[in-house]
């Protein structure tokens, strides 16, 4: 990503990311910019020319907008530059949720899912029996035109 004259691109990107995924202070969940997702996004941009030019364009335009980076100006970026914005949004979500600690904040294990997986108890036979009883009670619900006599 190339630097832009009027604003510090790093700060601008952090600010945009903070708007895209804001913090939840009550639950100690950081916003995307403060979490450092910009590093993920710029690394991805180094490998992806379309994303790189999207970033350059978005940040340049952000620098021209009065009032700094707010939800309102980010909305403006989205409506003026929808394709570039969509590339950035996708990469931001990827960067944020590829962080194991952020997965844990929304109730999903931070560990790689193999080999440990999750402990899920098997359904006790009595429960299965109880739950399926009304279904069994209604009897067969299929049509069998040949009944084995093809």
């Amino acid at each position: 990503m190339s630097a832009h004259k009027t604003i510090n691109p790093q700060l601008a990107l952090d600010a945009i990311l903070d708007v895209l995924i804001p913090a939840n202070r009550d639950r100690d969940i950081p916003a995307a910019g403060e979490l450092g997702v910009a590093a993920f996004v710029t690394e991805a941009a180094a490998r992806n020319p379309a994303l790189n030019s999207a970033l350059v364009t978005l940040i340049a335009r952000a620098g021209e907008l009065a009032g700094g980076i707010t939800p309102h100006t980010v909305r403006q970026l989205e409506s003026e530059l929808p394709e570039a914005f969509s590339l950035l949004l996708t990469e931001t979500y990827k960067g944020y949720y590829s962080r194991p600690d952020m997965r844990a904040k929304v109730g999903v294990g931070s560990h790689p899912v193999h080999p440990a997986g999750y402990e899920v108890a098997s359904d006790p036979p009595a429960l299965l029996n109880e739950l399926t009883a009304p279904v069994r009670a209604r009897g067969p619900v299929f049509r069998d035109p040949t009944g084995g006599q093809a």
Partner: protein
Amino acid sequence: MKLEPVDVLIIGAGASGAAIAWSLLETRMRILCLEQGDHLLDKDFPSRREDYELARYAEFSCDPNVRGLPQDYPINAEDSCITPVNWNGVGGSTINFLGHWPRMRPSDFRTRSLDGVGEDWPVDYHDLARFYDMNDRNTGVSGLGGNPAYPDYTPPHPPIPMGKLGQTLARGFNEKGWHWWPSDVAILSENDDGRQKCVNAGTCDLGCAAGAKGGTNFTYWPMLENAGVELRTKARVREILVDEASGFATGVLYHAADGQVYEQKAELVIVACNGVGTPRLLLNSKSKLFPEGLANRSGKVGKNLMFHPLTGVAGVFDEPMKGHEGPMACSILSQEFYESDPDREFVRGYGLHSGRSTTPMTYALGGYGIDNPIPWGAEHREIMDNVYPYLAGLTVVTEDLPEEHNCVTLDPDLTDSDGIPAPKITYRLGENTQAMLKHGEARAQEVLLAAGARRILPKGDKVWWRAGWHQMGTCRMGNDPGASVVNGWGRSHDVKNLFIVDGSIFVTAGAVNPTSTIQALALFIGDRIKTNIATLFD
């Protein structure tokens, strides 16, 4: 360069190629399988990485156009509302499939006589029943016997846990008085034959690093390779060759990893390249005898492409549903609306599948198979903190009717890395399907509310884009050579030593995931080949 001839040449090492190889093993014929991809190495399972979800958007996407790996072929789906997805390598699409394992129902094989749509199959449920059982044992299927939606059978292993989500939805179905049943799954609920039981990791699309999911990379192929079946990987078949005098297939030309093209001769050629790969190969195999593509005198190669168009409805509950824990697509299945009902505005029917919910990144990006990120900003925070953990959803999986205009052809420009013309998909949703999707959405909402959902999430109108998991119908079977590509046991009407065993031979699609039927059919065809061996080419 020419190689030593073999008796049986199978093209494609996925679900169906593996099953037919197993069936033919006892004949002691020399069997060779050519597969364009490679084995998936243990180190390559992304679910062992901390950032495992990223693989879904890169090298482990289900979409070959996203993966773009050397073994993949591109698919032009610009004229389709659904794009086909797959895996190309040993195990085929059972590497990234989700292991949901319902059988087709008896009525699925008789849609013309029962409901006046599609065509009747030349086989029926009862012809396949013993092969379903056989394949369930080989695959390691878990489930609960006694499902009143089927003639009686019992899966070899007890059911996997439905989990809180499945139990909650089951109560909703009971409240409505509607059918549901714990899903049959090609996933082990208990350790079996050196394979580990499912650890509920929930990322079955990223390959199953535990070996619990019954991909043929874990089930048939180790057994087959031990028994002497040769599996030649990184071998992409360019065309099937035919002898102009006899009209028999003589073998194939294939591109090997060393960049050379080889000719492999065989007595019997079996195509198992899936519902898009198979018509592509036949259409690429043109000759004086078959100027419109091999085995295509009927003109049906590539026609009648069927998917299972689907849509999802999600409800928000009061307690966390832990939908990411447990096999991704399998918990319970309702077939309340499976059979035709004259009171509805459509024929045939659909299933309501309780997929579990997905992992956070995939949810934020729109869900599995969808590119439609959830809102950003304050709304994003609200959704991820107060909606996502509390979700339970139902997927409406509809029966697609065969329609000739839905088809696979060859793209005039696009090719794979070996320069072989790529497939082009032309597909639109039928009116019947659209009516089913609408009906299914409304019923799914009712169940979710009956199960205790406090609200239903709004959803877009589109069907899922990457929902071309099941590719069927493009070389249909039938008794009439003018209206079908293969006969009632998979043999080409036009080329007597050419067989097709994958989902392209389906006559209709049913409204269930197809792989248990694809493999049962492959075993059935293997059985017919053995029975008819003395007169096989008559």
